[in-house]
């Protein structure tokens, strides 16, 4: 028995080692261009990962059915690798390292949430691999990182959009904020919002500024404080899964005023989780699916037909981010043979794109690699659709 156990253990160890070695030296095909996706397929925001993956799959089919990407007169097949970062900062760094070192991708798309994109951006920058985050709005993701780009607008732009819209539409003088303190995105946007609101309405006009943790389910104490301060509206820069709980609990505590949300509300899953409680609320986001025109409309219809639901902003931004990388690759005169040269060429080509017409609108890029583009405020209709309310351009 003992010998049997020992042998089993030894055999298992050998197999694990062999598996490591095999993945270490996978066969390289020179005619394939590999792009990695660092996305949250499990964890707090799995729908975000799913939307990203679906949009990427659709693009991959389009490109590969036409023979692949053409660089310098030669066609290369495209390969997308999807890795799960579990919506955790540390896993996002590990995924970035795995994609860079083990899989040898030439560019990384994602992570989506700033919580993962800020640390993973550092990893990509140090390892000299171009990374483009579709959804991250925190300025730190790309700041002083020449290898890191994004497809979304920034929170210093989104904050004032929310401030101005709420002041105008709700006629509000005072505001309250509830945010996730362990999420870079939520915390950063909450602070920008407070700064902007107090600049506009005077000091002390943010009457409550309450935080919570990522895994929290009960927000009653924070909401009691907020409601006790009787603000004109509540700003909720949170992920959609928390929004569902916060809005419901606020209503249970007797709150009847409006909520203002941010782009992290805009998941296809929001209405499924939040239901009637979220109807009639507003949030700022990257695009409005209802009433879209042109390329955006085509994209929405194709996605809807393929996957059975309207693409959320993450899907549209992933589509844009991936197309940006492809455009950078196609603009090269020839495809370098060395991987480090391939990565450097993509980075330089991305830096040279001045203007890009995406499904989330036309974007121009500044010297930090950040797009300058319009934001939209949408209203959640009584049918649960995200209806266009206002567009704000820089």
């Amino acid at each position, binding site marked *: 028995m003992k010998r049997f156990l020992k042998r089993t253990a030894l055999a298992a160890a050998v197999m694990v080692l062999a598996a490591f070695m095999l993945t270490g030296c996978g066969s390289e095909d020179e005619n394939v261009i590999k792009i990695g996706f660092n996305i949250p*397929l*499990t*964890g707090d925001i*799995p*729908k975000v990962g*799913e939307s990203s993956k679906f949009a990427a799959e659709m693009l991959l089919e389009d490109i590969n059915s036409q023979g692949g990407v053409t660089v310098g007169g030669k066609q290369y097949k495209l390969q997308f690798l999807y890795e799960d970062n579990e919506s955790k900062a540390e896993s996002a760094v590990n995924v970035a390292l795995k994609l860079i070192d083990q899989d040898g991708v030439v560019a990384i798309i994602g992570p989506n949430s700033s919580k993962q994109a800020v640390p993973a951006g550092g990893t990509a920058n140090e390892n000299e691999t171009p990374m483009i985050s579709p959804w991250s709005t925190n300025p730190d993701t790309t700041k002083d990182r020449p290898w890191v780009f994004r497809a979304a607008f920034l929170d210093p732009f989104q904050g004032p959009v929310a401030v101005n819209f709420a002041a105008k539409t709700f006629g509000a003088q005072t505001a309250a904020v509830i945010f996730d*303190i362990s999420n870079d995105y939520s915390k950063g946007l909450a602070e920008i919002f407070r700064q902007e609101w107090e600049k506009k309405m005077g000091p002390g006009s943010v009457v409550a500024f*309450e*935080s*919570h*943790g990522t*895994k*929290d*389910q*009960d927000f*009653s*104490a*924070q909401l*009691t*404080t907020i*409601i*006790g301060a009787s603000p004109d509206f509540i700003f909720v820069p949170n992920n959609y*899964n928390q929004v*569902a*709980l916060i809005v*419901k609990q606020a*209503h*249970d*505590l*007797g709150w009847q005023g409006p909520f203002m949300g941010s782009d992290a509300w805009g998941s296809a*899953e929001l209405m*499924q*989780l939040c*239901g009637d409680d979220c109807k009639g609320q507003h949030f700022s986001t990257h695009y409005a699916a209802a009433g879209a025109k042109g390329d955006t409309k085509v994209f929405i219809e194709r996605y809807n037909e393929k996957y059975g639901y309207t693409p959320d902003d993450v899907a549209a931004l992933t589509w844009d981010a991936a197309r940006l990388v492809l455009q950078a690759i196609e603009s090269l005169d020839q495809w370098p043979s060395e991987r480090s040269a391939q990565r450097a060429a993509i980075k330089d080509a991305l830096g040279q794109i001045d203007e890009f017409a995406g499904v989330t609108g036309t974007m121009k890029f500044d010297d930090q690699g950040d797009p300058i583009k319009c934001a939209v405020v949408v209203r959640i209709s009584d049918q649960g659709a995200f209806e266009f309310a206002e567009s704000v351009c820089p």
Partner: protein
Amino acid sequence: MEVLIQNIINALQWGSFYALIALGYTLVYGVLLLINFAHGDIFMVGAYIAFFLVIFMLGNIGLDPGITLALAVPLTMILTSGVGVTLERIAYRPLRRKGAHRLYVVITALMCGLILENGNLALLGASRKRFPELLETTVYRFGDVSVTNLKIIVILAAILVFFFLQFVVTRTKIGMAMRGISYDKFAIPLMGIPVDTVIVFTFILGSGFAGLAGLLFAMSYPVLEPYMGALIGWKAFIAAVVGGIGDIRGAFVGGFLLGFIEIGVVAIFPSTMRDLFAFSILLLILWAKPTGLFGLARHQKI
């Protein structure tokens, strides 16, 4: 003043869930001296069982929400206690038969919890489930204090369960057998008491009320995910220890105490202080009274 009363209601609701889960920990510990670390995940399974029952009854059969709720309560409790008994049968009893040290059983429990979590993740995927609304929410307002009908039900349920368990353990024959096993598990079988039956009964009680807690939790916080039971389960376990694990009153008081501390800290300080304060206070209590509030050094546990 209104804010204070409102926060007391909030704390009563939140503490009710800790108390309901802590009762399950304490029951099993009282009889077997086993820390059933899978209990938080049994609570999660309870919430999912409730979810599927409710979806089935509302959607496939087309029952009225009120009738659905009335049926969902007993069915969820029965099915969840089935899960608890199954765990006991396939994981804990074989080890007990082989005379394994308690430590191994505790580790087994921990692993069972992880299996339940990740099994759920593998089976149902990572996307969250929305629990349908069974009860038309009515908000009662008293000045600036608001309370919903659901909150009242949750608090009442916790109190009723406490009195029920206290009655079962101290006033019935099977309760006497449970106390007997924890007192001397070698002598009790010699008296002709079927130990395994009593243990199964204990698991039925503990898991059944975890199922009830899962259903009520899903109604109050209607977003379900596979890891929802992990953290709340750990905290309820700590609450049970602070109350004096093995004692029904201890679990009840410990659960509410933790609820009150958590809500109270968040109401006054930033939320990052919550766990720091909560567990520092609990540590102080244990420091002054290492057996917990109701625990006696050599007390017949349960």
